[in-house]
């Protein structure tokens, strides 16, 4: 008991000290030798192929980070798939749960909402070039539509994914990768260096592909695990 409370006290003391030091450091921050990258972003914005500075940074100036980051999402999906593979599916038939009449309202609203969500996702994807929005936001809305469909019993839980679903998961990532590889063969020839005339098109293609695949991956985080029940309850 005393050992554990000592540890707690030490950790809390260190965290508090760290927090206060951090705040002190932030308030003492000198601004003299500061580089203003935001100005450089605005100067180069015309060459980036999009009109929104954050999208320009995300998909052009620091597009390499984004390439690696979508791979992080895929890795998480691989980890989730490895865990779902080993459990025994215990399927509670969702249709039974939805027999109550008041739940028909949920069913009806899901049927209305989902097409609208797809529309919103398309809109978010389209405005990403000049306004806040883009592939990740659109993908999140698509994934939410998938979750809604699953919860209302219209879309069954995903099992071990088939070939076509696996292709869907990585379609956008593969497209991004192939365009990245293609830049090595086009005129300037550096990794991820889009020719100025094609930059806008390339970024739009990448964003569209990513919306689909990231939407599927994010939905997969939920839909691959959603039928699992706590084994303790099932055993009793």
């Amino acid at each position: 008991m005393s050992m554990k409370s000592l540890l707690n006290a030490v950790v809390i003391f260190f965290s508090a000290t760290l927090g206060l030091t951090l705040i002190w450091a932030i308030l003492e921050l000198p601004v003299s030798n500061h580089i203003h990258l935001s100005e450089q972003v605005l100067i180069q914005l015309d060459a980036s192929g999009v009109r929104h500075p954050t999208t320009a940074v995300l998909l052009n100036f620091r597009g390499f980070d984004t390439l690696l980051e979508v791979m992080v999402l895929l890795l998480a999906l691989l980890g989730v798939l490895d865990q779902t593979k080993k459990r025994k599916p215990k399927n509670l038939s969702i249709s039974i749960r939805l027999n109550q009449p008041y739940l028909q309202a949920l069913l009806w609203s899901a049927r209305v909402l989902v097409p609208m969500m797809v529309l919103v996702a398309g809109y978010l994807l389209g405005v990403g070039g000049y306004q806040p929005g883009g592939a990740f936001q659109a993908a999140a809305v698509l994934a939410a539509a998938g979750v809604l469909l699953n919860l209302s019993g219209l879309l069954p839980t995903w099992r071990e994914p088939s070939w076509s679903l696996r292709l869907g998961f990585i379609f956008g990532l593969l497209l991004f990768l192939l365009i990245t590889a293609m830049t090595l063969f086009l005129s300037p020839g550096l990794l991820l260096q889009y020719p100025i005339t094609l930059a806008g098109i390339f970024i739009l293609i990448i964003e569209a592909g990513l919306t689909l695949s990231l939407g599927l991956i994010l939905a997969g985080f939920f839909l691959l695990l959603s039928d699992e029940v706590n084994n303790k309850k099932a055993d009793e």
Partner: protein
Amino acid sequence: MSDPIPWLILLPLLWGLLSFLLGVGRGGRLAIVCLVIQLALVALLVGQVVAEKDRYYAVGGWSAPLGIDLHVDGLASVMLLLTHVVILPLGIYARSYFSHNVEGVGYFWPMLGLLLAALNTLFMSADIFNIYVTLELLGLAAVGLVGTAGNTRSILAAIRYLLVTLLGSGVYLAGVALIYGSYGSVALAVLEPLIENEVSVAVFLAAILMLVGLLLKTALFPFHFWLPSAHGGAPTPVSALLSALVIKASFYLILRMWLGLYAPLATIQAAQLLGGLGAVAILWGSIMAFNQTRLKMLAAYSTVAQIGYFFLLFPLITEVGSEAAEIAMQGGVIQLVAHALAKAAMFAAAGVMILSMGKDDIALLSGISSRLPLTLFTFALAGVTLMGLPPTGGFIAKWLLISSAVSSGQWGWVVVMILGGLLSAGYVFKVLRQALLPAAAEMKFRPVNPSLEWPAFLLTFISLSLSFASNNVLNILGAG
């Protein structure tokens, strides 16, 4: 197009994605073909670095500070070469291992591809935020691989490893935020000239946060608590991969920042602290390794001890004469290379013996010397490398480190290194003694495919030939 740098990142990502498309447990053959190509690409790159010094590469054509720079120097070349020399035999081993033992293969190959892309990028990146992304990619790949076995022990190890690696990269990112707030850039090329002896509180704090975050991931004592369960509980090819390479990545970053970005802040007191923790790690790790009853846990605790050796490097390169520092640096890098090869071989050999015994228990080893002589020989040679006896790479590394310590008058570290060698002899001989006993009558060994034994032997063979080729490694290191 003929430049190897972008392909070293794209190729592993590409075969990782394609092997996912092929399905569960598939993609081994594709991976091995691509690993051969990658080895050739690395050889090409190393040739370029040796011929024309450091190579810079501006991703997207936007050079720092707007874009992300890659930078390959001598140290990065050594690490890239080491990674690919270790991973090719391990890949062949893994393919054979998973054909014996299908449970636990899962999506091994896609994860391996992404892990390699993360490692290659990490070694080349010259941008502290890009390094954060590679750290996360590396960490999640490693955690996913630990979890593939799917039993309680490995899931617990994976969760603990995941939380530690997330804490480590979160703390690192807090440091990055402070640096960006201070200087408005995350590019090493911009930051290095700006950081001087006198820095603001924020920069000093950033240095500490980034160091602590990376130490957590490197598992230096007392941050080692997660390592034995993760490395000991994972499927054997994964254990070998983690101990040989993944640990080295965050150590490499600490070394890079110590010598580069934060060199003006690197004091001898900080170096003594790291060296002291390293010394404790050597003693604690060796003693714990000796007390283990399971072979893979023994090898995992041996990694805890060997990580300690890496950190003895810091007091030997900080505030000493340039000649002593250079010798120490050479010794440290040879130590990294020798340990990666030897530990990969040791885990691989342990995996073969465990497959043959059917259970991970050192007490059951008696009689294995007549059943698997090649594998036992592999294990013994790897052990001799860890002890640092001639004629291995481990000996050359210790020789260089000790002579550097002597020339800068730091006798304490000499004692630690010699004591550490004796302690590692203790746990290696514990295994060998048991293996050389006559077999118990009721013990039945299962036959093992030679395609498992030979890749493991190949790894020790390379590690042994390192002692004759160490000058080549030092040439590459000096090219930077």
